């Protein structure tokens, strides 16, 4: 299948324009424009405090944005009246959020529910599936992430890597248009990172559209169709992995950010 080309006629799946956000007096996002086409994997890297996670959380309106617009499939995410910044109703927000999947740094599994129940909750209460259907879908996806034998375990009975794979299954089982991954390996022991990233790579291979925030540069290079480097609330550098890593494109700031990883690895 050919990669969808961003032609004039086909709008991108996700379209961010002029996103600004402040926490009190701290201007976290200072005007971010970004497009993600269907089937693309766009990865955001950058130093901590650069606004990556905040930007990601704006996409499903876990954070509000003070200026700019976010469109998913041409539909504004957070506001029913952009000019007056009137936030959508709770019901509309829920409906829109159901179209995006999110995986969190701290997993955020529901501790009172088993692995299967974690995946089934959205299927039952949001998608309105029957118990049997939801159970089947949950068992399918938990099988896909290698946890087919852990359906009835509670999160507290799973390792960090296993919990995060449940987190991924919970998100993709909802059949989202786009998957948001927020530093999903940062809280994991190093030996557990691989099993989680493998799952993400497999999803990318199947054409799942993703917006990824990560500190794993090597992984970003492997999985991404496009890499975005954020610094101080703006997109500093953007390009394909080959342009940035092989051809040496990008701002000085980006090059020096990368070199920190290189020296680290050499030691």
């Amino acid at each position, binding site marked *: 299948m050919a990669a969808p080309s961003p032609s004039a006629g086909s709008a991108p799946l996700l379209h961010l324009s002029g996103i600004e956000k402040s926490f009190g007096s701290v201007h976290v996002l200072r005007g971010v424009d970004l497009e993600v086409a269907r089937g693309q994997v766009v990865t955001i890297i950058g130093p901590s405090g650069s606004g990556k996670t905040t930007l990601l959380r704006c996409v499903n309106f*876990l954070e509000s944005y003070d200026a700019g617009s976010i469109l998913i499939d041409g539909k504004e995410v957070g506001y029913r009246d952009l000019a007056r910044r009137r936030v959508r109703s709770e*019901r509309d927000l*829920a409906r829109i959020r159901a179209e995006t999947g*999110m995986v*969190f740094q*701290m997993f955020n599994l*529901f501790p009172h529910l088993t692995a299967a129940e974690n995946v089934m909750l959205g299927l039952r*209460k949001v998608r309105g599936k029957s118990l049997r259907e939801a159970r089947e879908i949950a068992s399918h996806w938990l099988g896909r992430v290698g946890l087919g034998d852990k359906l009835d375990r509670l999160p507290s009975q799973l390792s960090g890597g296993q919990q995060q794979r449940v987190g991924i299954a919970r998100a993709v089982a909802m059949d989202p248009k786009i998957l948001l991954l927020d530093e999903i390996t940062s809280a994991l022991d190093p030996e557990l990172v691989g099993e989680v990233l493998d799952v993400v790579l497999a999803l990318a291979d199947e054409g799942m559209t993703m917006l990824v925030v990560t500190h794993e540069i090597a992984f970003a290079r492997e999985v991404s169709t496009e890499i975005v480097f954020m610094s101080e609330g703006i997109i500093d550098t953007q390009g394909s992995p080959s342009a940035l890593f092989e051809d040496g494109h990008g701002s000085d700031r980006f090059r020096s950010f990368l070199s920190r990883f290189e020296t680290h690895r050499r030691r």
Partner: protein
Amino acid sequence: MLNAIVYALPFLTTGLFVTLIVSLLTVSLSLVLGGLLGLVLVYGPTPLRWLVRGFSDIVRGIPILVLIFFVYYALPVAGLNLQPFNAAVLALTVFKTAQVIENVRGAIGSIPRGQMDAAKAIGLTFPARLTYVIAPQAVRRFLPPWINGVTDAVKGSALVSLLGVSDLMHSIQQVIGRTYDALPLYVLGALFYFAINYTLSMLSRRLELRYSYIRE
């Protein structure tokens, strides 16, 4: 001493019944009211939050006894005349409601923020997030301090005897008034209160076990 106790028992059963009724009313009314107001305190719009905050702070800063006398002796000035029994239940309920509000706030507040985020992210509406994600976790954290507070309510209910409500405490004093033999009666009263509260404590332990999903 045993004779005195056996003599007193029949007189105390009605009082015991009244104490149980007062406690039951107080506890159930405050559970409903405090639960609702607690949700307002955590999730409500700012002005309402301030109102609940103010109510809770003021009530918790006043001794129950003062609250009871206030409802019985001061409210009539404002045109609200209550029977001793009703005044007592109202005062105790107000007092207990403030506690329940804080129990609810504490229980919900100790749930990591990420739980709400994850529940939002899968597209659950606010009521669904509360019902399926927040409440099951909050109940478990709510129960231990709440049941502690229930025993407080039972003990505090002894103060309604001061309004002339014939509860357990009041009946004890009446029997003492007839027999002039205080010690056995107070021992008996203490045993009654202890029996009620010990039962509640055992029940609370059972409930806690039932709601603990983090099994070792």
